[in-house]
């Protein structure tokens, strides 16, 4: 046995001793690791059926390989363009209306000097975040259906017919964005308010002495102090541009607005679960997943490039 081998043997023995010393830690790992293997990594391996013609009778292993057939089918399908357009449109609207909303609201809350008023507002606006999409869709229905609260007021104000908020293509996107803003704006302020609470009050005092009014203070002190939080969240948001949230859109879509409401997530469910085209829908899901991972890593790279810390 030469020296190098002896060192290696010693090393592996040392590793074994540490493992033995922490044996209970490794035993504790077992349930969690099994969970990840079964519910996270086994499905990733199952993605292989996107390249097969999955047949329940033949099973996972014996189903024939078909290469990129399902992807080719999907890209040449007229559905593809529509799904991509719908997905991107909803994401885009969410980005330009939904993203700035919590920033603006945090700035507005920050201007409130009466503590009790501020706290009451915060208590109320955080609530919708914890309410399920089913309840929110039900509330939306109660408020906006043809005999709902909103339409009854509109009729009282002189409209002859009810506005079909829930069943028309032209209102669908507005309803989705509105729901998202209502549900998440309040909760989204938390992270900005935390950034704002870290601002040194002396900065404001100095600015007042220098004659800066409230709007100058906002522009020169408050905004710069949340800039990096805004940039980081914005860039990370770009990584999720293809995620529209299955739960919300599935609940709000119906046969009358299908043309604008069908997005990738809902399409995978309809084609895969209700029509049983497992391989094809897995291919659709994989396409979305791969674009997503590319976007996330590029967004993270971009975040670091502009001097923010990034997510990983």
């Amino acid at each position, binding site marked *: 046995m030469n020296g190098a081998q002896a060192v290696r043997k010693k090393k592996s023995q040392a590793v074994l001793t540490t493992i033995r010393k*922490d044996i209970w830690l490794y035993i504790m790992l077992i349930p969690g690791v099994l969970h990840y293997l079964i519910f996270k990594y086994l499905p990733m391996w199952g993605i292989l059926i996107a390249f097969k013609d999955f047949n329940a009778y033949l099973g996972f292993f014996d189903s024939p390989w078909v290469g990129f057939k399902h992807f080719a089918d999907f890209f040449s399908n007229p559905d593809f363009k529509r799904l991509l357009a719908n997905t991107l449109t909803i994401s885009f609207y969410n980005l330009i209306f939904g993203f700035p909303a919590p920033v603006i609201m945090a700035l507005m809350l920050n201007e409130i000097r009466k503590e009790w008023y501020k706290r009451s507002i915060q208590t*109320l606006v955080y609530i919708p975040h914890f309410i399920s999409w089913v309840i929110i869709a039900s509330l939306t229905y109660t408020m906006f259906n043809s005999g709902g609260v909103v339409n*009854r007021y509109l009729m009282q104000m002189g409209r002859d017919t009810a506005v079909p908020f829930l069943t028309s293509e032209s209102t669908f996107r507005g309803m989705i964005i509105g729901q998202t803003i209502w549900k998440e704006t309040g909760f989204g302020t938390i992270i900005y308010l935390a950034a704002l609470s870290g601002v040194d009050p002396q900065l404001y005092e100095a600015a007042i002495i220098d004659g800066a*009014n409230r709007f100058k203070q906002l522009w020169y002190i408050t905004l710069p102090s949340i800039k990096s939080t805004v940039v980081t969240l914005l860039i990370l948001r770009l990584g999720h541009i293809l995620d529209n949230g299955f739960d919300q859109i599935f609940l709000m879509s119906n046969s009358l607005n299908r043309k604008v409401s069908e997005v990738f997530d809902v399409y995978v469910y309809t084609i895969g679960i209700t029509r049983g085209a497992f391989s094809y829908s897995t291919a659709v899901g994989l396409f979305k997943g791969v674009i997503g991972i590319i976007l996330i890593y590029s967004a993270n790279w971009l975040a670091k490039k502009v001097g923010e810390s990034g997510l990983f």
Partner: protein
Amino acid sequence: MKYKRSLLSVLFDVFNYTFLGLFASTAILPFLYVLACSFSTEKEIVERPFYIIPRKISLSAYEYIFSSPTLPRAFLISIFVTLAGASIAMFFTLTLAYPLSKKYLVGRNVLLALISFTLVFGGGMIPTFLVIKSLGFLNKFWALLLPGAISTWNLLVIKNFFQEIPQEMEDSARVDGCSAIGTFLKIVLPLSMPVIATFTLFYAVGYWNDYRSSLLYMTDNKKWPLQLVLRQIVLMAAGNVDGATFDEAYTQPPLEGSKNAVIIFGTVPILLVYPFLQKHFVKGIMIGAIKG
């Protein structure tokens, strides 16, 4: 320090206080309206467009709900799934987070990398469905409880919290003859009670609100939790759900008032735990914001 406020500044304050007040009331008014409707007569619901105090209290909506076993059963199922789910989730999350919080653990970085990867990529809906199916979990409550038992985000936050506990405290327990499991149970967990409370509530809210798992894995509508039944009652009555079968237990289509009562059943448990949630989630989010 007092200084003279400009007219513009005063106007802005008026607008600001009013606007935020209005926005905040939209967060609660729909619930108050639905609550009022659930205790109203059908006549009043039709006659008055919006109100939060009913003129005449009626319990018929709730009587209707309890006239068939479907909703009470769904409610009990939801409670069971929430309690069992939150317990299972905390067991899985805590037992995984603790070893991962030990920087000297051999293989820790590989595990952490593999776990973090699931944040950005996953098998997706169909492969996961096929795994659940081949495990024989379809129409079993395991399908609602197990797949969501670890939220990677929660896991990493709890791991970071464990990392902050001074190692000396654990070492002294070990020197006194406490086993590794004993140290975890008697030293680490008691020190982490606020974190445990927060994340138990987070998981509980998640399980209570979940309808996707039951939509995917429960074809037997006798095993549906409240959220899925609610979706069917409210949205199907609106013609919003296609292809779903309405539970034959209700011979009459649901009355307007009873839909409201179901919404209340789905919301009240959340509002009951909300004060406890609110105490902790801000902190929870901030712990999560720190990288580790």
